[in-house]
């Protein structure tokens, strides 16, 4: 991403995490790739639900854990990938995942660490942490 709005955000609830995602969408542009990591229930999908809404998609944004890749059509083509149940990088390559890494899409990848070796250099990494039952910390690094 060209310009990040913050390098760390502390959210006090799931609904705040979604709201900050909606605002975050203003800073997202075509060709951006976001690699998200963090434990179960740390807010990755909740944050992305906000971002995808903010990008202009008004339908339900559901977890891609079982479907693996969800695609959304808004102003841009949005690709939501989840590596939670598929850790084999070869299989992701077989699925044609590299085709999404170009300037026609905006790509979000959850549990992305296994794909690091094949991701382009200019990605944005986001790490989600539990601070307490409701509080989540999001750290952002642009490459």
């Amino acid at each position: 991403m060209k310009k990040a709005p913050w390098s760390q955000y502390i959210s006090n609830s799931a609904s705040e995490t979604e709201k900050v995602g909606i605002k975050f969408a203003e800073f997202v542009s075509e060709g951006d790739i976001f690699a998200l990591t963090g434990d179960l229930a740390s807010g990755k999908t909740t944050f992305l639900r906000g971002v995808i809404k903010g990008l202009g998609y008004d339908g339900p944004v559901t977890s891609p854990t079982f479907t693996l890749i969800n695609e959304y059509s808004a102003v841009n083509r949005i690709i939501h990938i989840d590596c939670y149940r598929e850790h084999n990088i070869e299989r992701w390559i077989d699925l044609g995942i590299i085709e999404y890494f170009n300037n026609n899409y905006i790509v979000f990848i959850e549990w992305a660490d296994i794909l690091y070796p094949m991701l382009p250099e200019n990605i944005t990494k986001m790490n989600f942490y539990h601070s307490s039952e409701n509080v989540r910390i999001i750290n952002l690094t642009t490459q």
Partner: protein
Amino acid sequence: MIVLGIETSCDETSAAVVQDGSLLCNIVYTQDIHAEYGGVVPEVASREHDIHINTVVNTAMKKSQIKFNDLDAIAVTYGPGLMGTLMVGLNYAKGLSIGLDIPFIGVNHMEGHLFANLIDNPGFTYPFLCLLVSGGHTQIWQVNKFGDYQKISNTRDDAAGEAFDKGARILGLGYPGGPQIEKHARNGDPKKFPFTIPRIKNAELDFSFSGLKTAILYTCKRMEDQEIKNELPHLCASYQEVIIDTLIDRVKKSIAATGIMSIAIAGGVAANSRFREKMKIMADNSGIKTFFPKMEYCTDNAAMIAIAGYERLRNGETSSLDLKPIPNLSLDDSIYV
């Protein structure tokens, strides 16, 4: 009329043959589940479909005792699903269709799931509701007649099957999570840990399961490891109960909202015996007709694609060879020529 159905939208490679609306054969190629990955089933790849599709189709034809020349049409899933895996099935079906000079019919995978309720089930008539509840989906559909569907409920975040799977992971249980939780819940007290039914403002039919992950995670974080071990049956029973009660609550509300008194329950979570038991009690008390299709028809399969394709063919609807896979296909935008 004889229709060959092909399904490759995600994990499963499947082929089925339907003759005049009756299923002759349904073959599903499922790879071994690698439990050691703890929740991960590393079996998905378009290459895998490529390797298996020819064998799966030939097996289905052989078992049905049907020759390729006897086929009247090929039906195939063209979405929703994964671009790479959909492409394998679609291109295979197009090739067969050209080679045999018979029509080819693109079928919406979700329409297939709704039609799976009608396989081997002549007593079940329109209109009906369908709760589709699996790892990937938790939705309630109103099916008025063939081609006339309305989604009246959806999950806002995680599917119920995913809630089972991730809850099992948090509790340190193996994969697949649903059967693990069900097994441990058998001797547990479902009221011991008060998890609450998640509600959504202004959308009382919709589901939300994402918050339950946080609830069980922090319930466990407040306990010592040994305590979690001791309480495991109660944790599982309470967690399972809140998911099931949420499903039943939305089913009741959907029936009240639509006035439709028949409901089919499809998808992997339909295998949960506690869910079946509680659904039956609810139905018996309120005069609702419930139907659980055979499991082989409610996970991903080609039988439902062949049946839906057969119905399309009967209506004279076939697809153009230009049809492309549509990963985010919805039931509102099916394309037929």
